[in-house]
């Protein structure tokens, strides 16, 4: 399975009469984009805004962040099962607009759950904004929908999701011309002596069960998913979606999946990328036990891995599912490493708190902590669905690290970490 990204670099974005990309400048027609989005009758109005990298600007509440892309071959297979009918993806060619993200805002966020994307976020002193969050160096096209009053919460969230995907595809569709670079992804045979490394990708945690219509894998909501194998290209090419309120995991971070891209980079050099297992964190104990058995078998016997990297999703409980799967792999002789975040509170951190403790699980990467609050100094501009929210968040504020969009990344794309001293 060979996938080619045809990458166009976007260096500037502005409103214009027509939508096109010309020598790095993306021109967008508000009327055309609005028209496209309002085809979904669940939206009654759409606000559109632009923000530049490094601007003193705060964008909230963020529902999702998406990189503009469109499938060229096979054409029309964008986000199959969600935006378009189910078709295979992960092969052929996909156009990528790099340097810009589409952000969709949620007009009715859950109380105390306001994900904030601050373009100058700086959880750590003295480092450049680009080092602190991958979104700080991008242009942002922000979509602020107004939704039909009569919709229930699942319809609302589905409408927001489809709006974000439609906007992303629309932008990429109209930006033709010669790409600036191409990148191909293919698991060509590698030297047999290299260690085989698999990746176990926990898509979602059903501590908050997915609802009908909240597709994760080719549109399936994976409510009772037994671990299965996917091709890494399928993850990179739109087959996998996050859940509606997934923390520290945006569509952008899946499209640019750090673990998968790194495994590809090193494939044939110091490792052999053995493949990807996808699973979920389960709610019921037998489901969890069953998933542990199946994941272990897939990693050990189907992928014949010597080692495996694990990531999680959601909150604290799914650390357990990840740990059980990793422990099972260790029992089968597969060495593991996990990407987890520290669960303790800042009150007295003499000991970290993890929900698992096994001597076999001795290689854990720290993604930071859910208990670090990041200070946000007053900004010049806030893009939000209401004047009230804009006013509240224009002043000095703070946001927990897990809700600071771009700071923590469950999929390993961030350098943010935390240490006890």
């Amino acid at each position: 399975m060979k996938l080619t990204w045809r990458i166009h670099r976007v260096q500037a974005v502005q409103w214009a009469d027509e939508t096109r990309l010309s020598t790095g400048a993306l021109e967008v027609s508000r009327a055309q984009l609005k028209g496209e989005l309002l085809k979904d009758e669940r939206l009654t109005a759409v606000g559109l805004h632009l923000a530049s990298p490094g601007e003193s600007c705060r964008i909230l509440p963020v529902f999702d962040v998406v990189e503009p892309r469109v499938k060229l071959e096979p054409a029309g297979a964008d986000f199959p099962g969600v935006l378009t009918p189910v078709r295979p993806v992960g092969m052929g060619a996909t156009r990528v607009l790099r340097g810009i993200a589409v952000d969709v805002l949620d007009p009715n966020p859950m109380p105390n759950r306001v994900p904030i994307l601050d373009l100058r976020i700086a959880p750590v002193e003295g480092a450049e904004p680009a080092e602190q969050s991958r979104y700080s160096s991008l242009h942002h096209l922000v979509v602020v929908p107004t939704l039909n009053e009569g919709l229930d919460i699942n319809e609302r969230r589905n409408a927001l999701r489809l709006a974000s995907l439609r906007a992303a595809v629309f932008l990429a569709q109209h930006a033709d011309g010669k790409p600036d670079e191409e990148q191909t992804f293919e698991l060509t045979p590698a030297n047999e002596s290299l260690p085989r490394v698999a990746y176990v990708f926990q898509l979602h945690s059903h501590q908050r069960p997915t609802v009908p219509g909240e597709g994760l894998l080719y549109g399936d909501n994976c409510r009772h998913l037994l671990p299965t194998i996917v091709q890494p290209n399928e993850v990179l090419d739109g087959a996998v979606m996050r859940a509606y309120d997934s923390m520290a995991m945006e569509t952008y971070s899946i499209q640019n999946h750090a673990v998968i891209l790194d495994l590809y980079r090193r494939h044939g050099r110091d490792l052999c990328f053995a493949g990807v297992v996808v699973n979920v964190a389960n709610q019921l104990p037998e489901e969890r036990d069953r998933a542990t058995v199946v994941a272990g078998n897939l990693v050990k016997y189907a992928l014949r891995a010597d080692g495996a990297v694990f990531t999680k999703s959601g909150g604290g409980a799914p650390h357990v599912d990840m740990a059980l799967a990793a422990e099972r792999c260790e029992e089968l002789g597969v060495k593991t490493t996990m990407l987890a975040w520290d669960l303790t509170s800042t009150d007295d951190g003499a000991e970290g708190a993890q929900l698992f403790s096994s001597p076999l699980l001795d290689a854990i990467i720290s993604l930071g902590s859910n208990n670090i609050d990041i200070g946000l100094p007053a900004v010049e501009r806030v893009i939000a669905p209401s004047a009230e929210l804009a006013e509240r968040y224009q002043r000095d504020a703070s946001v927990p690290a897990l809700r600071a969009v771009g700071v923590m990344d469950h999929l390993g794309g961030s350098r943010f970490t935390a240490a006890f001293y």
Partner: protein
Amino acid sequence: MARIVLYLNQFFGQIGGEDMAGVGPRFTTEVVGPGRALIGLLEPGEGLAATVICGDNYFAEQPEKAAAECLGHIRLAQPDIFLAGPAFNAGRYGVACAALCKAVQSQLGIPAVTAMYDENPGVDVYHREVIILRTGQSAAAMRDVLDRMLRLGRKLRAGEPLGKPQMEGYFPQGRLEAELADKPAASRALDMLLAKLAGQPFQTELALPAFNPPPPPPAVRDLAHAKVALVTDGGLVPTGNPDGIEVSAASKFAAYRIEDRLEPADYDVSHGGYDNRYVKQDPHRLVPLDVARELEREGRIGQLHDEFVTTTGLANPVNNSRRLGRGIADHLKEAGVDAVILTST
């Protein structure tokens, strides 16, 4: 030139054993006990200026007075670095060492280092304020520990920033600091995995906790005459959450009177870590009062305690959970409860 002052208890100071634990503070310029090993570790320009000795009981019974008196001796010796212990698993000694380190730091403004085993109460009380090196239980490691203490003392004196507790070997002081690693997490994970596969050394970024549970209580002998209580950490609270139990990292628990049933309209859930709707529909799915009353009526249990106890177990730091657990246990013991059924999400 670095003047080092060492603190020892009556035993290591070679005054006597437990029978001499009541002796008061004194100092000597002679090299005694671990001081001999310390001398062998010094670098040119370093000297053991004095050793201050105090009995463990003397210190434990009047800690402020003892500390002040010891500090007087220490000050006279004009130290550049203060080392106390190591205390290993000796509790009174460990507390004294750490207390003195704290006093020396704040009142003399010089670096102070001590060392002890993780169960030593000195760690619990002082780890936030004092650099305490981690040791095993056995004093056979004395020379090694003294070497580590000296190295850390020198670093502190030179104003060098300390590395992470795991690297330097001291107990974390409870400060959680955000940092940027040199590479994204994904790269670090692959580096670590390849090192692990190659049998090369690596250092985990997250250490796993160690739990020291108490011995199991004996089984209930006569359940038919026992008083049983229902406790939950699923955050079930009366509507309006009158006692303000937090949705996460709860700092308190509360007890509420129960009759025969839990009516959904009377209860809320204050817990942000699970989908609350099933419990809201029927609170018995979390706190099984209905079945508990049946068991009581049938004589399977002697009596159901007339309250249920609730708190929220989400993202709660371990020591907070321990405190809540002890508090709940004390509360129920006072009420004459023999056994608890704790339900958890």
